[in-house]
């Protein structure tokens, strides 16, 4: 846990600033990366672009989800 965590707003009932330091920034950055990677593989990969080359397994596997989640599909 980050030691520079401040809980200024704890007594007033509103939300305090909770972030501090490089550790927090790294955690948040890593999380965003993970989220975006998942978003990419479910929604985009093997549609317009593909990281595994000319193959359709990812696309076909999540095919119904991709349509239903609003991503453009073939």
């Amino acid at each position, binding site marked *: 846990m980050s030691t520079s965590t401040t809980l200024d707003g704890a007594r*007033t009932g509103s939300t305090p600033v909770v972030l501090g330091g490089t550790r927090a920034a790294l955690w948040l950055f890593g999380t965003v990366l993970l989220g975006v990677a998942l978003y990419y593989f479910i929604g985009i990969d093997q549609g317009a672009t593909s990281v595994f080359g000319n193959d359709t397994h990812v696309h076909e596997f999540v095919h119904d989800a991709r349509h*239903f989640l609003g991503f453009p599909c073939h």
Partner: protein
Amino acid sequence: MERHFIVRGMAVGAIGGLLAFLFARIFAEPQIQKAIDYESGRHTAQSALDKAAGLAVEHEHAEPFSRAFQGNVGIGVGIIAFGIAMGALYAVAYALACGRTGKVRPRTLALLVAGGGFLALYLIPFAKYPANPPAIGHEDTIRERSGLYLLMVGISIVVLVAGAWLGQRLQARFGTWNATLLAVLACAVVLGAVMLVLPSFGELSANVEAYGHHATETPLPLRDAQGRIVYPGFPADTLFAFRFFSVAAQAVLWGTIGLCFAPLAERLLGPRPDTNAAPATV
């Protein structure tokens, strides 16, 4: 603190994804099946027309996963993983919003951030480029369509974040209520202008060349050489139902994220009567 948020965000995202999947399995799958039936019926009619005209008949390629697998396992994995992704991004957004969005209780902020995620990552892009069932969408425009869709998602995120910032700036001068209204109005104007400028999928050059000017890529009736309709256009009711359920499923997902995260955030951040020293480690 941020790790507590991330773990909880991904957990509530998984729960939201699970509920959205159950919803999709019950309501969306029948619509997807109808769309696929329409597609194969149309393909058969097209083949008959091509044969009559003496053209080479296209063969459908074999799919690596069966329909039953796609419609039960694939959609489940896809939507739950999407839920986890959204939960992760949600947790980051929540952590960043804490203490930067005025006097809001942790619980209320949880709902506001979920509402923002629903709007920015789904509903606003949907307003311009709505979800489509199978059979809608031409293979040769997938690049442009994906690019435009992601562009719309990106713009929505930027505009909503800027709107939240603007609201904060205006708050001192106009008060919370009026500042919020002004910020919402500014977002609506900018997003409306962007949607006017971006092309519709039917207006992409490949489509205009092949089909003429249409708003979307929804299949038109199939006609024979004499212009008689031999196969109908895509059923409007199926399209509506699919899109409506798509919006509803995302509302379930984001609603679950907001409502489940709210009490967790309250416990992590809220005032504790006995001690203010350390946040709960549970």
